């Protein structure tokens, strides 16, 4: 389905003004710094208040996928896309298991990165480095896929007036400038703006589409004729896949290193607890709304393929703007919200990589260097990573693009180190290390094996590769732990 340019010159100017205003926010973050050290730069001085914390958690957790991917999925799969609402809630359910204790530990021992906790808990540099490398790869892939998405979006929305390459370069520059100006403070403050924009965007678009096209109730008869498969409950295999999706996404996302840094950055436990209490209800006004928009879209527009269906919200808005002149501002709001959602996730991932490389890798090699030296190194790393990401997003051949989509499968494997590490004192670094290697190997073997043509299904028995890896990971940890316990009894 062909689409006219969504933005006229006024729209393009509005969006670019908004984007450049983020640099101003970055400058505010720079002038608000209290100390010249890593804790102040990467964790905003560990003093993040309730309002900022909630909005930065919200903006970071909901990426462009919420605005584009979830409604596209609902367009294609119907009501089974409701799994997205559940897994977004389940992420907070998993935080409940480890965040209270990790937050308390971070205050006591001044952690800056996930690696700080791993090193302190397991006293193993080998394990810390391995987990840091997995985090960097997963976050790097995240940045790359989001940069590509934003490039295509702006190129399409401006009807080619801004090219794919120009869009990626300009947006990356803006993000890296405000990030290196004020670190977490700038990122969290820009997240506030982006979070508000995202929430307002989703709610406005949902209400307008709901009013104009009618809700699920008014379209259900039409939709029942057009897409009868939407009404059948999932069969046993689909239900297994449903559960597997909830587990793999919620476990992977709950251990995002940039989300963990926000747990450290909260001013106190009450503020963190209140933010999470509010966060658990956000899928009902964000994810659920976009799923309903996708289902309404399926009753209005037929025959979109996979990539076109990702733009179903935009198609509905364009239709609406053609019928009701004067509401083209809705398209600007929607696009601003998508851009905000993508940027708030990319800048947080960039900051997390920069802190991981600086604190968990470089600082270990050069333990005696000053804080200002580390800060300078961290900022340089941000620029370097962004440069590499931009080059890869522009130049990467499509044939190896699949490799860069492995994120959650890898992150799932580091979850036992956090969940068990926080609560179970007897688990050793060796158990976690062996489990991590086995889990990572199994996940990659299934995924890469499938892509390279081996007779391995991408989701054996309807279960994601990352979950198979995690199951083997946990079994291995259990066996090793029992073995270590029995040896202790023998030698006592």
């Amino acid at each position, binding site marked *: 389905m062909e689409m006219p340019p969504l933005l006229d010159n006024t729209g393009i100017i509005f969006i670019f003004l908004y984007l450049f205003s983020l640099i101003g926010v970055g400058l505010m973050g720079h002038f608000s710094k209290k100390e010249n050290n890593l804790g102040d730069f990467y964790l905003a001085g560990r003093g993040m208040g309730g309002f900022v914390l909630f909005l930065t958690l919200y903006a970071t957790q909901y990426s462009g996928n919420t605005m584009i991917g979830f409604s596209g999925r609902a367009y294609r799969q119907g*009501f089974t896309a*409701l*799994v997205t*609402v*559940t897994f977004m*809630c*389940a992420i*907070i*359910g998993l935080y*409940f*298991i480890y965040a*209270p*204790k990790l*937050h*308390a530990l971070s205050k006591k021992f001044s952690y800056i990165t996930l690696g700080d906790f791993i090193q302190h808990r397991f006293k193993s540099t080998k394990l810390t480095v391995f987990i840091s490398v997995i985090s960097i790869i997963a976050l790097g892939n995240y940045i790359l896929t989001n940069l590509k998405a934003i490039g295509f979006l702006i190129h399409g929305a401006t009807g080619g007036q801004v090219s794919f390459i120009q869009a990626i370069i300009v947006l990356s520059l803006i993000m890296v400038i405000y990030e290196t100006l004020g670190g977490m403070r700038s990122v969290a403050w820009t997240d506030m703006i982006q979070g508000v924009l995202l929430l307002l965007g989703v709610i406005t678009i949902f209400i307008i589409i709901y009013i104009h096209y009618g*809700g*699920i*109730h*008014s*379209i*259900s008869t039409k939709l029942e004729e057009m897409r009868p498969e*939407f*009404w*059948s*409950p*999932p*069969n046993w295999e689909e*239900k297994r896949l*449903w*559960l597997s999706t*909830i587990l793999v996404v*919620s476990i992977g996302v709950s251990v995002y290193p940039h989300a963990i840094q926000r747990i450290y950055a909260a001013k106190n*436990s009450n503020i963190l*607890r209140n933010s*999470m*209490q509010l966060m*658990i*209800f956000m*899928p*009902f006004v964000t994810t*659920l709304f976009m799923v309903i928009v996708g289902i309404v879209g399926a009753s209005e527009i037929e025959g979109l393929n996979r990539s076109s269906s990702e733009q179903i919200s935009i198609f509905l808005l364009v239709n609406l703007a053609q019928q009701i002149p004067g509401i083209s501002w809705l398209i600007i709001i929607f696009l601003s919200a998508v851009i905000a959602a993508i940027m708030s996730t990319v800048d947080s991932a960039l900051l997390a990589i920069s802190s991981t490389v600086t604190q968990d890798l470089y600082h270990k090699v050069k333990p005696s260097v000053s804080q200002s030296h580390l800060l300078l190194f961290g900022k340089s790393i941000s620029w370097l990573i962004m440069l590499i990401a931009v080059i890869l997003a522009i130049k990467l051949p499509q044939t190896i693009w699949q490799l860069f989509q492995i994120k959650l499968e890898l992150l799932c494997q580091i979850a036992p180190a956090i969940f068990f590490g926080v*609560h*179970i*004192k*007897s688990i050793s670094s060796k158990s976690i290390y062996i489990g991590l290697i086995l889990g990572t190997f199994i996940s990659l073997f299934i995924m890469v094996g499938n892509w390279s043509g081996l007779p391995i299904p991408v989701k054996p028995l309807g279960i994601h590769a990352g979950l198979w890896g995690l199951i083997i990971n946990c079994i291995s940890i259990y066996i090793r732990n029992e073995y270590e316990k029995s040896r202790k009894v023998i030698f006592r």
Partner: protein
Amino acid sequence: MKRNILYSLAVILNVLTVPWLFVSDNTHTLGGFPLWALYSIVSTFIYAIIISYFLRNYWSFSASEEGLE
């Protein structure tokens, strides 16, 4: 309540949000939603309320030093 029971409950409630009991001949609707889809939304909302309650009342308990063992 023991900590491992509390965490197991959080996980089990999550597993229950999958519409396990709805079979293919069940295509009744309510408010435009198929019943199984409505079940997924409502059960997820109940899950959210319970986790919110856990966060409010068991945060300090979850943060305390005693391990699961």
